């Protein structure tokens, strides 16, 4: 009985906080837009039987008819993939440096990585607007150095979105890689060198393979939220930045089209299920390997 209770707790948690909201969203996605409160029909007030009878998939069909949606999904995938890769390129050297730093420095460096979380995410994105705008800090600095003659247009482009995503999700990349590198026995690299590797070869043949799990975990932790990201593209991106999170927001708040917005959300979730399942399998494999 107690064992059952223990297992029940996470399941109840999942049921209440994930499955029930998902079912509600899914139900709305099967409804039609209506001028009422709530802004869709049918509802429970029409009776359960009538409600089920009125459900249809026309919102999903609509998503395939308007090319805005699949273009937004594809564009989101591309932006998420590229920014995940860029975050890895920036994050790995930082994690490596942290793992190789003297012991007394590590706590401080770790603190510096986590420190940005102490400020609101929104404020930090606004700060980037201040840095990247035409009259912003970056352009002012480059003009002052004489490297450029007129300000670079960065804000409201995809580049600004990449910068925003890389900046925001960098700690999620650094921490798992650091954890993997930190556990790495230094004598493994020495052994590789002893057996004829140069430093660089030892890095590719020993360090990278042995931090693979950290790289995978960090990449998923960046990719999954980046795919559905909406604040960064709407604040830093321009009219040309097409991301599904932004579309979802607009459907929901600008068009007040809850059924289509819900359909967009359901499809996004289905797309996300694939990397989430892959991530879970990686975590499980890692746990098994450590036993």
């Amino acid at each position, binding site marked *: 009985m107690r064992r059952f209770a223990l297992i029940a707790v996470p399941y109840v948690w999942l049921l209440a906080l994930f499955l029930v909201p998902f079912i509600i969203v899914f139900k709305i996605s099967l409804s039609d837009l209506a001028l009422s409160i709530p802004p869709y029909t049918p509802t429970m007030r029409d009776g359960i039987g009538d409600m089920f009878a009125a459900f249809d998939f026309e919102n999903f069909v609509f998503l395939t008819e308007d090319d805005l949606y699949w273009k937004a999904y594809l564009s989101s995938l591309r932006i998420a993939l590229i920014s995940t890769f860029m975050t890895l390129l920036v994050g790995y050297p930082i994690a490596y440096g942290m793992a190789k730093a003297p012991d007394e420095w590590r706590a401080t460096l770790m603190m510096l990585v986590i420190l940005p979380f102490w400020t609101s995410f929104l404020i930090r994105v606004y700060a980037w607007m201040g840095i990247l705008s035409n009259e912003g800090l970056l352009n002012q600095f480059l003009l002052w150095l004489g490297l450029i003659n007129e300000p670079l247009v960065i804000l409201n482009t995809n580049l600004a979105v990449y910068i925003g995503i890389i900046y925001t999700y960098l700690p999620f990349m650094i921490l798992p890689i650091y954890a993997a590198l930190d556990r790495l026995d230094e*004598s493994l690299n020495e052994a590789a060198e002893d057996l*004829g590797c140069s430093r660089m070869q030892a890095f590719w043949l020993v360090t990278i393979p042995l931090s693979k799990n950290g790289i995978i975990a960090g990449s998923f932790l960046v990719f999954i939220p980046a795919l559905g990201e909406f604040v960064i593209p709407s604040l830093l991106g321009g009219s040309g930045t097409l991301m599904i999170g932004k579309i979802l927001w607009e459907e929901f708040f600008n068009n007040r089209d809850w059924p289509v917005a819900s359909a967009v959300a359901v499809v996004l979730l289905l797309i996300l299920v694939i990397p989430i399942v892959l991530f879970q399998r990686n975590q499980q494999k890692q746990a098994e390997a450590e036993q």
Partner: protein
Amino acid sequence: MTQTVFAPWDDPNQKPLIRFQNVTKRFGEFVAIDDLTLDIFEKEFFALLGPSGCGKTTMMRMLAGFETVSEGRIELSGKDIGHVPPNKRAVNMMFQSYALFPHLSVWDNIAFGLRRDRKSKSEIDARVDEMLKLTRLEKFGRRKPHQISGGQRQRVALARSLAKAPKLLLLDEPLGALDKKLRQDTQFELMDIQESTGTTFVIVTHDQEEAMTVASRVAVMDEGRIIQVATPANIYEYPNSVYVADFIGDVNIIDATATPTGENTYALNWIDGQPPITAETKTTFSAGQQAHLAIRPEKIRISTERPDDAANALQGKVLDIAYLGNLSTYHVQLPGGQVIKAQTANTRRIARRDITWEDPVWISWSATAGVLLEH
């Protein structure tokens, strides 16, 4: 049939494989190796023995190339290797932690070094199979390091470090992680492999028994200096200092003042009111010089009656008996309060019962049983 004794260190025409010339290594203010000079010859099984922090690991890491030399030079086959990086040295190392690559199979671990040499596939295959056979690991080639036992991991580490046929193999506490029984078996295995491959081995250990068992010569180190280099038998029977005598095996040290009584013979006054001890030595002591007599417990006889033939006989009282099965060690307290250990082999099945706690006994030894040391 004459058998040639393997002793290249006694042959002035032999060129050493490794030569440390006045090597000093500092870490900041700390002197890890202090003006050390040493020759190691080809095909030797050389043991660096000492307590932790004595510099033995630093010496090994300098040979492998992981540490640079602060002063002096290290030669390998007559060439200075001070600035050769580890991957360019014909030296391989077996790490204390084994440092097996956890993401590679046993086979790939052993092939790792060969692949770096861009050897052909058939050459690599043949060499890895040879190494697996040498270390009796044929069945485990496909396994990952975490899927085999500690003893097997140790053999993989050995096979991997031998695969490139190095001129010199360094072993850093190679048996430290094994339990006692396995360690003893592995010691003999190591000696066999060393002999069959003809590789020069340098082993670092803090275990004196291990060093004595495997090595052709042992260097006893302390605080960055080599105190004595000799064969295991010589280091045991002719230690050059109290430090070495005490570090290797069990020993009784009697402090005394020496008085010459004849050629190479000295009378040792070790305590007032007791007859002096007679000892023979080739070292010259002046009258009244401080000396330390080091005698191994097994060289001391213990009896209930005063023996007639012994050069030295002292009466004492049994304080403790340590029964070790094959041996018994008696702790005998002398009139001055000093405790002397005497050891007898339990050759008879029933342990000698005529000596027990608190018994008055005689301990005796010959004039040549002990070593008279200056310091």
